[in-house]
């Protein structure tokens, strides 16, 4: 089985409002899948469909090759963006309750909780009430509750919000660790740098439609424009710039260096080879900097959404 989760042509309407329009996705087994999109695009509805909270009007969802059904609840761990815990309930009791709802037996849940509480160093909180904890502390408890039943599919909606950098890093490491142990992760966030860092695959949803998906590297390859960022040491910057402008399409580049070089973005035609450019440049100047410009997820996000609108 290559895809753990397959979403086929799912549509969902609320009255006259279309939340999802014929959306299809495939989440490869063992991947970290970034589900991106502007606010109100339909991400949460899609996640709720996968969690069987909302039933789709049309379309199908398959988990591990089977049509999604009630027994799959225990195969999914979901950390919603709108999260919270019972304020007046004790941490331990609450975690046990939620774990039992996911189908764990009480003794099993207790053992695993002990492991996780020790691992995240929150063992002392067992008898504290949630209202006595800070937001970040409660988030840790919430994370443990989400992963406790060792689901095949983990869905995190903005998992790092509310964490300080140290704890955010801790949670990030835990997510990577879970993936190593075989879990597949769907990751919905607006923090593009963490998408860049973690995700293998992405899908972009805008206005209820999927407008882009695939392997992150493939997407980037698709979006790169054969542009190179160069730094050139020469005696006459202005003269060289004029010469290059005649041969290539260039624009000013901005990056930090020690000397006052000529900094340019040079866009090649599709046929042109980078090596040819480089050897040409070496005849004219001393090349101090030569990098292919790969679009960031941030750029792709903004560009695609803008074009789509």
């Amino acid at each position: 089985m290559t895809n753990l989760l397959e979403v086929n042509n799912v549509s969902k309407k609320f009255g006259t409002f279309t939340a999802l329009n014929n959306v299809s996705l495939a989440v490869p087994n063992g991947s970290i899948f970034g589900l991106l999109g502007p606010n109100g695009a339909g991400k949460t509805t899609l996640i709720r469909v996968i969690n069987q909270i909302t039933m789709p009007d049309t379309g199908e969802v398959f988990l591990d090759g089977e049509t999604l059904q009630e027994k799959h609840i225990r195969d999914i761990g979901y950390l919603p963006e709108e999260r919270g815990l019972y304020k007046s309930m004790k941490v331990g009791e609450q975690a046990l309750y939620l774990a039992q709802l996911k189908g764990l037996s009480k003794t099993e849940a207790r053992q695993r909780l002990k492991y996780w509480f020790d691992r995240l160093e929150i063992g002392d909180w067992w008898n504290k009430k949630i209202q006595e904890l800070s937001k970040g502390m409660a988030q840790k408890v919430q994370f443990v509750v989400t992963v406790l039943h060792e689901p095949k599919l983990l869905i995190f909606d903005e998992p790092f919000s509310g964490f300080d950098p140290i704890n955010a890093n801790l949670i990030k490491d835990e997510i990577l660790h879970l993936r190593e142990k075989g879990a597949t992760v769907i990751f919905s966030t607006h923090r593009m740098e963490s998408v860049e860092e973690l995700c293998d695959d992405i899908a972009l949803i805008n206005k209820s439609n999927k407008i882009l998906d695939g392997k992150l590297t493939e997407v980037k390859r698709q979006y790169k424009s054969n542009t190179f960022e160069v730094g050139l040491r020469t005696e006459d910057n202005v003269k060289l710039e004029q010469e290059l402008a005649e041969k290539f399409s260039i624009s000013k580049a901005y990056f930090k260096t020690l000397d006052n070089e000529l900094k340019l973005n040079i866009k090649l035609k599709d046929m042109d080879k980078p090596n040819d450019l480089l050897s040409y440049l070496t005849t004219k100047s001393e090349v101090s900097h030569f990098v292919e410009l790969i679009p960031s997820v941030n750029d792709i996000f903004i560009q695609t959404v803008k074009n789509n609108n």
Partner: protein
Amino acid sequence: MNHLPLIIKREYLNKVRNKAFIIMTVLSPVIMIILVSVVAYLSQLNNDKVRVITVLDESGFLENAFENSDKTSYNVLSGMHLTDAQTLTKEAKSYGLLHIESFSNLEEASNHVKFYSEESPSLSLISDIEEKLEKAFTSRNLKNKGVNVDTINAARVKINMAQESFEGEKTSKIDSVVKLIFGGAAGYLLFMFIIIYGNMIMRSVIEEKTSRIIEVIISSVKPVQLMLGKIIGTSLAGITQFVIWLILGSILITVVSFVFGIEVQTPQQQMVVQSVASSEINTQVQNVMEAFYNLPITNLIVAFVLFFVGGYLLYSSLYAAIGAAVDNETDTQQFMLPIIMPLILAVYIGVFTVIEDPHGTVSTIFSYIPLTSPVVMLMRIPFGVPIWQQLISLVILLASFTFTVWFAAKIYRVGILMYGKKPSYKELIKWIKY
């Protein structure tokens, strides 16, 4: 996966362990007993006071007409002027002065009698005196016209009609009172239960929304399960509280009445005592017991359980739906009215119509309508309702309960994930189609 027992357990423990709940459970009977004791004590104080009424009889018709009782004593003056008698009454701090002018025509007695007092006298006192005067003047008048009073008294016939239904069931006035008490108690109990614990369910649904845990829960269990678990768990907590109140209350009543020697009476007991007082006193206990045995006990208990559960579940699912539709308690107001109205209507019909005419059209119709039937039917049953009527009513109740749960679950399912604006009725209808 059936998580219902787990949810019920959590809801129950959460309610029962709640500090406010514990305090309310312990304190309510104590406060009630204190209140009742204070009222009882005060009314006893009032009763102990003997009212003194001075009587100035210038007509001479009224010898021996005024006998002192526990509460009133009469001070008969003679050979005095009215103004002197008034001063005397005031100085002696007596309650009032009854003045009868000198007159001859007994038929016009009314024009010659007057009562003077500092404050306006109570209605019962006035009618008491009026009764005494009427009796005295009438017998005087009869004597004047040559009629023998003793003959009239001897000829008087007294009737206490025995009642019996065609099926041979004996009934009596006391019967009706006892039936009323049973029906009324059952109806009121349900009413109170719905109001108190329905609200509790609503609050706990809102709490789940405001603490934002709902989406976590709902990804593990079906909303209907969560809703039913909540309703059942809260109800069990409510029953626990009620039982504790009953036990604690009866212990406290015993202790209080033992220690202070105050006879604590519930209004119902007073009603029985009053109605009994007007009939023959020596058979009162026997009559009450008889009336009690005459009640359709088995029918009453079975019907009580069924209608209580049915009615309670019907209303509490509505409460749960309201909780799901809004974000905070203040927004619940607009949806509360349609729930409270039929409840209050049911109690009014129970109190006014059922007593007057337990099997009349109004009572019968409202004992079929699901939102009022539990209360009204429970009040009617002691008066004997044919089983088939009860069954029809019960079937209607169950059908509408099923419908309400379905309806509430729909609203619940959509509502618990909706935040922000307060929905209108129109939007609620739309949610059902989602």
